[in-house]
């Protein structure tokens, strides 16, 4: 099974059926699976903080929702995490493609990519780095279980070692 299918299956197992996202070429490997599967409603947001708002609304009405974004987009959505998800205790799994890792070609992606995990630490948000297919299902399912048990946002950071990265 591909890493992308493993993640899509883990979402289903946790009854996460609404996915709000801003497109990214690497996470496209997952979102294209989600888009084809009638179980999911894939919502294309114009900006990452909007995706978090949509996911928060879904959870408030009893539907589990996750967001997919790039690390640059995490930068766009910090206040939605700090001012909405955390104070209201809304569990939103955030799948973040870490740009700025080894193999990065774009200088503009480096600083936000490198800052993403330290910012998550400052916000007190648990995060896990997904950099291999080894024990991936176990890692993702465990993280999702923790997210809903703790009722707080949680991040799953995906690196080029997992998805192959973007080369041009």
């Amino acid at each position: 099974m591909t890493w992308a299918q493993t993640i899509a299956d883990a979402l289903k197992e946790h009854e996460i059926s609404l996915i709000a996202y801003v497109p990214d070429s690497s996470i496209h490997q997952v979102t294209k699976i989600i888009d084809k599967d009638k179980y999911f409603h894939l919502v294309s947001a114009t900006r990452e903080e909007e995706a978090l708002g949509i996911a928060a609304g879904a959870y408030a009405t009893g539907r589990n929702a996750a967001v997919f974004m790039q690390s640059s987009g995490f930068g766009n959505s910090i206040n939605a995490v700090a001012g909405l998800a955390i104070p209201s205790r809304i569990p939103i799994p955030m799948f973040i493609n870490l740009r700025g890792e080894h193999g990065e070609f774009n200088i503009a992606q480096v600083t936000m990519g490198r800052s993403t995990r330290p910012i998550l630490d400052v916000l007190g948000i648990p995060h896990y780095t997904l950099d291999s297919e080894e024990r991936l299902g176990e890692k993702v399912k465990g993280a999702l279980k923790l997210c809903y048990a703790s009722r707080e946002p949680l991040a799953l950071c995906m690196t080029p070692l997992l998805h192959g990265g973007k080369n041009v």
Partner: protein
Amino acid sequence: MFRYSATKRIISNLEREPVVSNLGPTSDELWHASDRDRNFYTYGSMGLCSSIALGMALSCDEKVISLDGDGSILMNLGTVATIGRESPANLIVIVWDNEQWAQTGHQKSHTAFGTDLEMVARSNGIEKSFTVADEEELDSILLQALNEDGPWFIVAKIEDEAYLSVAPVEPEYTLHRFRQTFVDNPERVG
């Protein structure tokens, strides 16, 4: 039109419909009008009120009402495009438009200089977009919106008024209370 009076009138037209309110006075006034378990007050994340309502509308069968503001929605006009794209029949967005950022010192907003939020909504495919200037008009459009498919986008022009006291709201509690009205199985604890 004054927002608090109009808010009370909106609530009097509702039964169990979920309502999301923009941060600050809009949430305070909703709380003072009626602290329903179906109210979702926001106290941060400015700009996301109607995005939250969109997420709700895509996840439940009931009419969902967003009480947004001009300053807030100007911060996140992209969500108007997403509402147009998703086009949920059960979403009713009401934008209180006082043409200013009132709470921060009455600085004029872009709607005071010609930005027409109704036209913004229309150009994003939300055909049922209207601008209303008094409570009677708002009342009649809302009654229609509660009974006909949307999405609806209602710009309600309002005037300045004195603020009420800050609602003693605990976000964690109101989210939990709101959510419990939608889920069959209460969340397990422990």
